[in-house]
């Protein structure tokens, strides 16, 4: 077949990139070779736009056993054990076909984890959808959640946490980021390396079909109108086969037959073989005629580029192939020798006796284009950061004390009063209970989930030890839009704060960087700033980045998603009996606010929901202060005096207090709060989202102990009230029964979905 301009364009390659192929090869590629180049050089596989920025991340630490570049990162947790985890996006396919797109996203991240030799013990997901007014939002939300449930539940890996936000910037592109955490022996790590000349390349798992061809290329492009027409590029998941693959792989890992293994994810057989040869410094000869197929008449092009799910490529010691086959046959799975490791440094593909492609491995990896794309601070940035609070009316006070006539709170310029505002915030989809979602996920299977979804972080114990892992995902993309540097630093800080509030020491993070079209300088500016902001926070908080994923081109007809650098973080709890949850425990307990409240309303959920504004500067973050705050809180938890701890985030102090009262599924409790004298706007005090704040509750007799810990770390700590009764009362401006609060907060998604 002659390679025409049209064909090059269909493969998502630019003219310059095609010229680069010609000069590397010194000849025209054939159609298959062009296909191989196109997927390996796609943004999704090559990171060509993001690579130079990602170098800024701190990736080392004394516990890091495996940093970025493998299927997943690994951290040592002592006692001969290690944790593998990673987060990955499946945005484009999920928008096109929500159920299968999300399901195979879960399948892919699970494979990334067990490829490393770890047993997956928990999954999380970070989701973004458009506003509920948009006609596709309900369909996408229903489909994505059902897809995640359908896959994860069948696998028997609990889905223990995550986050969901709704915002109009995601109307044309939803985000589906899936994360899985696994545990393993630190001495038994498997890597995606093709080593040992003459060792055999085995194909294991499902048969290859025509699904998902060019999925990686599709995921490296913007959508126009009619993106749904790309449905054939989305794969179809089979969680049952994946469950077999998981158990079979873990069984074969107990032997010493396996030299290297890699999941066939994006770009399937092509990327798995090329990446393994690249890491091993070897070559691979493949015979596609040996690859098990689901249908007749598939061409080498289709076999090499298929993204059929539930497949792995393994390099096994020559002579062990029969033993490996026996293990896979026990699980009713295919295991076929399809190639051999060579010292040629070439990817050679044969179809029986015909050689159909020969490409030096490094042309596909090291020689792939790397772009230093133009960067420009957007013209709109100054405007969106500017708000004049004078023009924003404060809510009225209708409860509690009679305000003196000259009290500015008493002059209602806004229809709402503080009670209404709190109820409105609690019933906004971003703050409301996410039970409708996590109820569809089996979050308890494996009987390790100590803290179920609904607290700051999920806590999963490790049987046979006293240890537990806390895990969370975080990103406030409105902050990132208003100030990508600060917003991204906050994403890291808040994820860490969530873990600390559960009693864990953060150990490492994975990220999923979701942005628009990198060919637009404004998007690249957002990306650069986000990476710098995250890096800064990681350094200050001493949390290395051990892996992640970049998803660009989340853009439809010129409208990009808000920059969404999602952070997935794992923390270690040395003694699971000292874990903490966010809800108040007992009547009479003292409530203490750690940290400092400033007059900051920019980027708040309050401004968005009540005043319809996505504006202002996000709250300031002082990372040195944040580090001290987290240390103080963790020390107090480890000292056994903290009965509940809750991070302050969207909705600020008032929403966090309400959550402390109502978020426990078994019972609710009230609180009486008197905030100390202040000079700021009442709405900023109650709904502002100042960073580095935690609400804790303690037994009354432990107050002095807590104060002295806070003092030692130079952290402001103020007693603001006590737990008890069945109302939440704050300073005479909020007075609501916990029943009303709970009614406003629960079942919101259900009601919105019913329309």
């Amino acid at each position, binding site marked *: 077949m002659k390679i025409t301009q049209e064909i090059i364009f269909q493969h998502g390659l630019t003219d310059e990139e095609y010229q680069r192929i010609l000069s590397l090869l010194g000849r025209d590629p054939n159609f298959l070779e062009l296909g191989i180049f196109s997927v390996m050089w796609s943004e999704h596989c090559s990171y060509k736009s993001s690579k130079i920025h990602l170098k800024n991340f701190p990736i080392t630490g004394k516990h890091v056993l495996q940093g970025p570049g493998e299927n997943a990162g690994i951290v040592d947790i002592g006692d001969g054990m290690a944790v593998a985890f990673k987060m990955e996006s499946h945005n484009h396919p999920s928008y096109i076909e929500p159920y299968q797109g999300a399901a195979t996203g879960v399948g892919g991240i699970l494979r990334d984890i067990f490829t490393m030799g770890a047993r997956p013990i928990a999954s999380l997901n970070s989701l973004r959808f458009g506003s509920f007014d948009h006609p596709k939002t309900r369909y996408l939300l229903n489909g994505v959640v*059902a897809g995640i*449930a*359908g896959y994860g*539940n*069948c*696998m*028997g890996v609990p889905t223990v946490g995550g986050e969901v936000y709704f915002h109009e910037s995601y109307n044309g592109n939803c985000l589906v980021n899936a994360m899985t955490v696994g545990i393993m022996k630190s001495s038994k790590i498997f890597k995606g390396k093709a080593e040992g000349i003459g060792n055999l390349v085995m194909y294991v798992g499902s048969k290859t079909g025509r699904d998902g061809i060019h999925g990686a290329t599709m995921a490296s492009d913007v959508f126009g109108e009619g993106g749904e027409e790309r449905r054939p590029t989305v794969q179809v998941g*089979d*969680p*049952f*086969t994946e*469950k*077999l693959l998981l*158990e079979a792989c873990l069984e074969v890992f107990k032997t010493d037959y396996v030299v290297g293994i890699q999941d066939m994810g994006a770009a399937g057989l092509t990327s798995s073989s090329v990446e393994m040869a690249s890491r091993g410094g070897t070559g691979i000869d493949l015979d596609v005629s040996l690859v098990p197929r689901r249908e007749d008449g598939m061409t080498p092009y289709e076999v090499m580029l298929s993204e059929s799910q539930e497949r792995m490529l393994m390099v096994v010691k020559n002579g062990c192939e029969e033993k490996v086959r026996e293990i896979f046959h026990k*699980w*009713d799975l295919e295991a076929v020798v399809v190639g051999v490791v060579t010292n040629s440094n070439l990817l050679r593909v044969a179809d029986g006796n015909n050689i159909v492609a020969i490409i030096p491995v490094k042309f596909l990896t090291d020689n792939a284009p790397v772009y230093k794309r133009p960067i420009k601070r957007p013209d709109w940035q100054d405007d969106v950061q500017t708000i004049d609070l004078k023009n924003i009316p404060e809510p009225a006070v209708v409860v509690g004390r009679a305000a003196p006539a000259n009290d500015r709170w008493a002059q209602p310029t806004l229809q709402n009063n503080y009670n209404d505002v709190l109820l409105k915030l609690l019933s906004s989809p971003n703050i409301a209970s996410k*039970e409708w979602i*996590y*109820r*569809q*996920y*089996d*979050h*308890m*299977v*494996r*009987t390790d*989930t*100590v803290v*179920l979804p609904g607290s700051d972080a999920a806590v999963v*114990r490790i*049987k046979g030890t006293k240890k537990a892992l806390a895990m969370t995902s975080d990103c406030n993309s409105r902050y990132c839009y208003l100030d990508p540097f600060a917003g991204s630093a906050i994403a890291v800080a808040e994820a860490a704060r969530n873990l600390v509030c559960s009693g864990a020491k953060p150990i490492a993070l994975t990220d999923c960087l979701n942005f628009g079209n990198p060919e637009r300088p404004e998007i690249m500016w957002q990306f650069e700033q986000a990476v710098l902001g995250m890096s800064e926070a990681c350094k200050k908080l001493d949390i290395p980045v051990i892996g992640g994923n970049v998803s660009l081109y989340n853009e439809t007809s010129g409208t990009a998603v808000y920059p969404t650098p999602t952070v997935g973080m794992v923390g270690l709890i040395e003694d*699971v*009996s000292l874990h903490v949850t966010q809800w108040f425990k007992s009547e009479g307990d003292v409530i203490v606010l750690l940290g400092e409240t400033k007059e900051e309303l920019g980027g708040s959920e309050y401004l968005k929901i009540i005043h319809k504004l996505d504006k202002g500067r996000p709250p300031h973050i002082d990372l040195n202060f944040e580090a001290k705050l987290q240390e103080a809180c963790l020390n107090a938890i480890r000292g056994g005096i903290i009965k509940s701890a809750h991070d302050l985030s969207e909705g600020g102090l008032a929403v966090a207090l309400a959550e402390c009262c109502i978020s426990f*599924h078994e019972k609710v409790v009230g609180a009486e709060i008197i905030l100390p004298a202040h000079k700021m706007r009442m709405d900023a005090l109650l709904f502002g989202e100042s960073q580095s704040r935690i609400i804790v509750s303690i037994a009354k007799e432990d107050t002095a102990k807590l104060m002295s810990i806070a003092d030692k770390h130079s952290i402001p700590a103020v007693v603001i009230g006590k737990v008890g009764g069945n109302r939440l009362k704050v300073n005479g401006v909020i007075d609501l029964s916990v029943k009303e609060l709970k009614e406003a907060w629960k079942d919101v998604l259900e009601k919105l979905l019913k329309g």
Partner: protein
Amino acid sequence: MKFGIIVFPGSNCDHDCYHAAKHVFGQEAEYIWHKETSLQGFDCIILPGGFSYGDYLRTGAIARFSPVVNEVIKFANRGGLVIGICNGFQILTEAGLLPGVLMRNKGLKFICKSIYVRVENNQTIFTKAYQKGQILNIPIAHADGNYFADKDTIKRLEDNNQIILRYSTEDGEITDDANPNGSLSNIAGIINAKGNIFGAMPHPERVCESILGGEDGRGIFEGILSLSS
């Protein structure tokens, strides 16, 4: 007491049942592969939750033909103790060891949450550690838990006291609101007429340790263990 936990390729609560029997209650426990053809030496067989053979067809419809289920049928007919939890319950109904069928939940969605069940009959091996009328807080996690049987079967179950657990409110009332999946007569768990086969949708193995938020599931195991003491 020696427990055997059946492992279908898609079982995923096998570890949990094993952990409960072996580590929480200190009993002998072994996994039994679905291709096994002998259940020699076991006192109690657990069919755990999960997705036996993927359950892309009706849940449990394929599992019922597996080699090990033939042995479970023989084992049960000899009077051996058999518990089916969730997918295990579905398989027991498919295999004809328990009457009725578990259909798709009325809301058509998978539901994982802690619910309340009322102990209707404590005169069984499996529930003797509970009081009659006791309310248990136990999680469910299924998409197909909507129990159905014809009128005569339900009447027979009622007459013989074979309905063991019913979905209830926290206060023990049997209401529609307390019924998470649409089960006929709020049925959550039943027993065979002979009293040696017990099937239930709730997962007792998930609430045997206080660190997991509850211990209401312990009674099932304690009832069985009292046999050997």
